[in-house]
């Protein structure tokens, strides 16, 4: 039995309503833990005064320079003593889940037992960083809890100016739209950069995210310094039985309005089956006895829309890999930036292909470490130095897929033009 709970009239309001309540969970923990009794008092004080009261500090584990988020209370009495003394320290340990956030229940129960013993008993599944957030632990217990978690086979996530915990979608494990082995890519990248995760020494954070297709369920283009987005080069695949089944259920209006008209590059047309082109880059599938969808794969941008609508009837092709973008990040400091294409297509089929991706990532991180200013993300760095300088730095050739359109201003010195054209022609001739 824990000590008497503090009155929490404001938090009590968050126990009302049908959605699962984190306050109810905290109160259950507070039955046995003085730590959580005071945590609830601390949080109620924030609700009353509309301010946060945790300050950072330095808490870590032996051998690592980051991964623990230290928190010390700032709610003090007149003598400078913590008012909620049992929750005066509330550190979080970031732990990397397996790719795709799959668990067996043994593992989750072990996490619970460890955190029940050493921590608050509160675990966030998952933080926005993609980590298991073991929330709330005293300085004294951080190392003990960590040792047991690490013994289970889990490693600590990133924090501060470091390579961060990565995220990958469910992908090949359960999605027909998966275009590469997201978990393998995720695993290879993290294993390459463990040192950069655990010993923060970069200009600022660096995030990897892996999405198996253009639906980008991991928000990689918006959020990751290096986004790996599954795609394919050859023709879309089709399945006539599923296409006819879809048409029988949804009809012509939906086919026109929801599929054909919504293609962003007008690559799909509905045609009489006898009129469908036989070109090598055309995919087609009959939807009934007389009509077919005709898709010009040269025009298709692999956006995923028609595949999302007619799952199974339409699908990615067989020559799969990924488009790689660099430089996504949120607002601070220059405003949010999306990633920019730096590799339009990278094969991701064989083991060596994945090694090639890791090598690219290493080049990018090396360049970032050397050239970014303190607290500057890759997107900001590229904006400052220009994409061409960045590409030259990482040894990647330019490609017209990297731009929305060519430059719209004449403010560029072009006296190297002839040499550039000669180089391009020489390369074409050699190919």
């Amino acid at each position, binding site marked *: 039995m824990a000590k008497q709970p503090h009155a929490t009239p404001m938090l009590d309001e968050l126990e009302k309503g049908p959605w699962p309540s984190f306050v109810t969970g905290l109160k259950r923990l507070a039955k046995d833990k003085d730590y959580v009794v005071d945590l609830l008092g601390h949080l109620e004080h924030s609700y009353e005064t509309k301010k946060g*009261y945790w300050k950072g500090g330095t808490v870590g584990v032996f*051998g690592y320079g980051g991964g623990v988020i230290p928190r010390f209370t700032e709610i003090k009495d007149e003598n400078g003593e913590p008012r909620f003394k049992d929750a005066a320290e509330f550190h979080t340990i970031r732990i990397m889940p397996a790719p795709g956030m799959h668990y067996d229940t043994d593992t989750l129960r072990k996490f619970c037992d460890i955190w029940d013993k050493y921590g608050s008993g509160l675990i966030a599944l998952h933080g*926005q960083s993609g980590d298991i957030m073991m929330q709330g632990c005293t300085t004294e217990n951080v190392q003990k809890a960590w040792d047991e978690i690490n013994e289970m086979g889990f490693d600590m996530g990133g924090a501060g100016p470091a390579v961060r915990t990565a995220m990958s979608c469910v992908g090949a494990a359960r999605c027909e739209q998966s275009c590469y082995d997201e978990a393998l890519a995720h695993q290879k990248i993290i*294993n390459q950069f463990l*040192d950069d995760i655990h010993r923060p020494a970069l200009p600022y954070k660096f995030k990897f995210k892996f999405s198996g297709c253009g639906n980008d369920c991991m928000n990689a283009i918006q959020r990751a310094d290096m986004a790996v987005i599954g795609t394919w080069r050859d023709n879309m695949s089709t399945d006539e039985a599923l296409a006819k089944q879809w048409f029988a259920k949804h009809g012509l209006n939906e086919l026109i309005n929801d599929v054909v008209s919504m293609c962003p590059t007008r690559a799909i047309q509905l045609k009489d089956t006898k009129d469908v082109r036989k070109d090598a880059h055309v995919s087609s599938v009959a939807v009934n006895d007389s009509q077919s969808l005709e898709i010009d794969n040269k025009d298709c941008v692999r956006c995923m829309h028609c595949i999302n609508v007619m799952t199974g009837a339409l699908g990615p092709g067989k020559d799969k890999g990924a488009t790689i973008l660099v430089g996504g990040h949120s607002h601070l400091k220059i405003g949010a930036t999306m990633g920019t294409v730096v590799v339009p297509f990278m094969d991701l089929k064989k083991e060596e292909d994945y090694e090639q991706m890791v090598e690219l990532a290493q080049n990018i991180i090396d360049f970032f470490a050397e050239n970014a200013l*303190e607290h500057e993300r890759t997107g900001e760095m590229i904006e400052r130095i220009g994409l061409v300088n960045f590409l030259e730095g990482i040894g990647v050739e330019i490609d017209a897929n990297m731009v929305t359109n060519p430059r719209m201003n004449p403010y560029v010195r072009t006296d190297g033009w002839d040499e550039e054209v000669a180089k391009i022609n020489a390369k074409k001739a050699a190919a």
Partner: protein
Amino acid sequence: MAQPQMRKPVEYFLDNKKYLHPKLAANYGNWKYHDRPRPGVLHHVAHSGDQVWSVRAGTQRQMDVHTIRLLCDIADKFAEGRVRFTIRSNIEYIVSDEAKVAPLIAELEKNGFPVGGTGNSVSMVAHTQGWLHCDIPGTDASGVVKSMMDALFDDFKNEEMPNRVRLSTSCCEINCGGQADIAVVIQHTKPPKINHDLVANVCERPAVVARCPVAAIRPALVNGKPSLEVDEKKCICCGACYPPCPPMQINDPEHSKLAIWVGGKNSNARSKPTFHKMVAAGLPNNAPRWPEVNAIVKKILDTYKADARPWERMADWIERIGWPRFFEKTGLPFTKYMIDDWRGSRYNLNASAHVRF
């Protein structure tokens, strides 16, 4: 005295194969198609002929160990002891026997976990740590989200929206919650209040000066002590100076407001990905239930639901109807603060005769 022997960490990152449901492991990379037999359930069919049903349920994200153990009990009973989580903190149970789907749903709902969040539903809000744990929060995302999901409970459990709806909530302008169809984000409205007694001891002053996006901060001697000063005419109240220098207190119980943004889209489907745009601000940080925020979120969602065509995400819908009609239909005021003046802003202005009447 000898130091106690410290354990060296084992550094490695694990394979996920041993955590996969057996049917997922067996059909890895070999799925054919999926459909959704009912809201909250995905049905995947593999080329091998194997089928799995994934049942998705909402959680409170930060969970006490009792809740997690309960979720594990349910997995042991119905789902061969395996679970996975989505990016929005929904839990997924995978079952290979269709007959188990209905009892699993009943068990989850009996224990208070709503089944839904698939397809054209409003999924759980991606959110940040807030007052519970963050060192710089302007609000408590967990509380905002709890009150919001109470209001959107039926929209989570049903697939009645034109397309999927993704929400986020962030406790400061760093926007850790991420881009979303609708995002609720703190928007400070006053420059930081500086505790000059502490700056010299706590802050690395050049680093703080460098953080400011508008160069409004400069070193200064205040009351004989090295400190910093802010040009309040330049200050955009973003709070970027606060994390490296906590004495520059940006959070204000009254003047830290909430803003609402719409039209962020991570997917490449149809249009390219988009960032969300500000459509409301100045909302009070009204803990514990934030009714003013919830009323506007609900109003935007109701308008979208009634007006958008099938498969139009929030951004697609607004692109079709235009921003003037978005503001007209939602009843939200279009103010001068929504006209961008940050770098690149003129790309956000209408440089055409495209005007809807």
